[in-house]
C-alpha cells in the first residue's frame, strides 16, 4: 500500500514546461528522497503535490484519494505537511504564535506532538516568545519543520532543509528527521547526497523535469556512474 502516488504529472509555470511526466510513489514509514541538480524540478514537484503549482496533466493520489484538483488548504487538511525551501516563516510572529497557528486542533494528541517536537528541538522551547524573524537560520528551519509536523500529518514534504546551514546544524536536522520517521512518512528533497543517503530508504533521481533513475538508496550508493552523471559527484 503506497501513501502517495504521483502518476505522469506535468506542470507549467508561465510558458515553461517544468514537470514533463513525473511518476513516483511514497511508501508509508519510509524516507523517500528526491534528488537532482538545480532546476531538475524537485521543488516544483513538491509544490505541485501541495497544489501551489497546479498540474496540467497527470494524477496525484494520497491515501487512495485523488488530490490534484483540490485547493492547497484542503490538501493540507488531508494530512500533508509542507516545509518549503525558503522555510516560509512568519517573521513578525513569535515562535509560540506560529506554533499556535500551525496547530489546527487543540486536543491532547496535538499537544503531545507539540511536546515531542519541543523535546526534539529545545531551542524552540527556549525562544518561545521570540519573533521568528530574529531566529538563526537553523532555528528557523526547526520552526518550519515543527510547524508542519505538529498536526497529525501522515506525510511531510521537506524541501532542502540543509540549504545554507552550518554542517553541525545540518547534522542536527537530519537526526531529527530520522526520529520523525517513526511517527510520520517523509518525502525529502535534498541536494546534499551524503546526508540524504544516510537517512533515505528510497530515492528518485530527477533531471529536466523527469524521473531518470529510481531504487533503494543503498543501490545508488553503489552506482557511481549514475551519481556522476546526474549529481556530478563520485
Amino acid at each position, binding site marked *: 500500500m503506497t501513501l502517495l502516488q504521483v502518476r505522469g504529472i506535468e506542470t507549467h509555470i508561465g510558458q515553461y514546461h517544468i514537470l514533463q511526466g513525473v511518476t513516483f510513489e511514497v511508501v508509508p514509514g519510509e524516507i523517500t528522497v528526491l534528488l537532482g541538480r538545480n532546476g531538475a524540478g524537485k521543488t516544483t514537484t513538491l509544490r505541485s503535490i*501541495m497544489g*501551489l503549482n497546479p498540474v496540467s496533466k497527470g494524477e496525484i493520489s494520497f491515501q487512495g484519494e485523488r488530490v490534484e484538483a483540490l*485547493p*492547497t*488548504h484542503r490538501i*493540507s*487538511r488531508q494530512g500533508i505537511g*509542507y516545509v*518549503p525551501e525558503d522555510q*516560509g*516563516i*512568519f*517573521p*513578525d*510572529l*513569535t515562535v509560540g*504564535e*506560529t506554533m*499556535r*497557528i*500551525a496547530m*489546527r486542533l487543540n486536543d491532547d494528541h496535538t499537544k503531545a506532538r507539540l511536546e515531542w517536537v519541543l523535546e526534539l528541538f529545545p*531551542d524552540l522551547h*527556549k525562544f518561545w*516568545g*521570540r*519573533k521568528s524573524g*530574529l531566529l*538563526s537560520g*537553523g532555528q528557523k528551519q526547526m520552526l518550519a519543520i515543527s*510547524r508542519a509536523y505538529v*498536526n497529525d500529518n501522515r506525510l511531510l514534504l521537506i524541501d532542502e532543509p540543509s540549504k545554507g546551514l552550518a554542517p*553541525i*546544524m545540518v*547534522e*542536527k536536522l537530519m537526526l531529527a528527521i530520522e526520529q520523525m520517521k517513526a511517527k510520520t512518512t517523509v518525502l525529502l528533497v535534498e541536494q546534499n547526497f551524503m546526508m540524504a543517503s544516510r537517512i533515505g530508504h528510497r530515492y528518485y533521481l530527477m533531471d529536466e523535469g523527469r524521473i531518470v533513475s529510481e531504487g533503494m538508496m543503498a543501490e545508488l550508493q553503489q552506482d557511481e556512474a549514475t551519481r556522476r552523471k546526474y549529481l556530478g559527484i563520485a
Partner: protein
Amino acid sequence: MSGMRTSKIGTIWFVIFVAGLAALPFINDSRSFLILMTQICIFAVFAMSYDILLGFTGIVSFGHCMFFGIGAYTSGVMLDRLDASIGTLLLSVLVGVLLSALLSYIVGMLSLRLKSHFYAMLTLAFSGLLLVLAEKWRSLTNGNDGFTFPIPSVMKDRTVLYFTALAVMVVMFLLLRRFTQSPVGRVLLAIRENEQRTESLGYEIVHYKVFATVVAGMAASISGSLYVLTLRFVNTTVFGMDMTLNALLMTIIGGVGTLFGAIIGASIIEWAHHGLSELAKFHPIFERWIIFFGLLYIVVVLLFPAGIVGTLRLWWLKRRGRRLEQSLQADSNAIRKEGAG
C-alpha cells in the same frame, strides 16, 4: 516576561494618552479646537479600520470610503426622516454597520479569491457606483447639494460630542486590538506575511480575508455615522476618493500595522490641514496649502519610513534585538561546543 512588561508599559502610556485627551476640553474649550479634536477621533477610527486591511491583512483598498459613506448617509437619512433621538441614532449606526458588513462581504467574496489588487479595483468601482447613486437618487439624498438634518439635542453640545467621539475611538481601538491579537488576527498576520505558507497550513485564506474586510467595513461605517453627526450635514463628498486617500495617508504616516499609528496619523493630518488653512489668513501662499501638505508627507515618509509609530517600534525592537543577538551568539557558541564535544 519582557513581552508582558512591554505590554504593561504600553497600557500605562495609553491610559495617560486617553486621560490627556479627556482633559483637553477643560484646558481649551474653544469651539474650533473641540471640533478639530472630534474630527481627529473620528478619522482615527476610519484610519484604524483601514489599518485592519492594509496593516494586518495586506489588502489595499481604493474605495474604503464607501463604508464611511454608507454610515454617513444611513445616519443622515434616518435622523432626517425618522426622529432626532438617541434611539434613532443608535439604530442608524446599527443599520449602517449591517449594510457595510453585507457590502464588504459581497465585494470580498467577488474579488478576494483573486489577487488582492482585484479587491482594490473592485472597491474603487463600488465606491464610484455609490457616489453616482448618491448623486442621482435626489429624492433621498438631494444629490450633490446634500442635506442638513437634526441631531439628538444632547449631541448639540460640542463637549458631549467630543467625549462621544473619544469614547468611540478608545472602544474601537481596544476592540480592534483585541481582534488583531485573537487567533483570527494572528492568522491574518500570517496571511499578510506569507499567503501561500498560511494556505499550506490548512487555512482557507479567502474566508479570513473576507472576515477582515467585513470588520474593517463595519468600523469605517461607525466613523462615517459620527462624522456627519459633527457636521449635521451630509453630501456626496463622503464617497469621494479623497476620503480613502486620507485614510491611506493617515495609516501610512502613523505606521502600518500598528493601530495606534492610525490615531497619530489622523492627528497629524487633521492638525496640518487645520493649521495650514489657518495660515492662509496671514499669507496668501498658504491658500495653496495642499502644496505644503505634500511637502509634509514627503518629510514624514523620509524621516519615518515605517510611519511614526512603526519607526519608533522598529527602533525599540532594534535595541532589544541587539541584546537578543548577543544571547543568540552565546547560544550558537554553545551549540558549536556541544558539536565539538
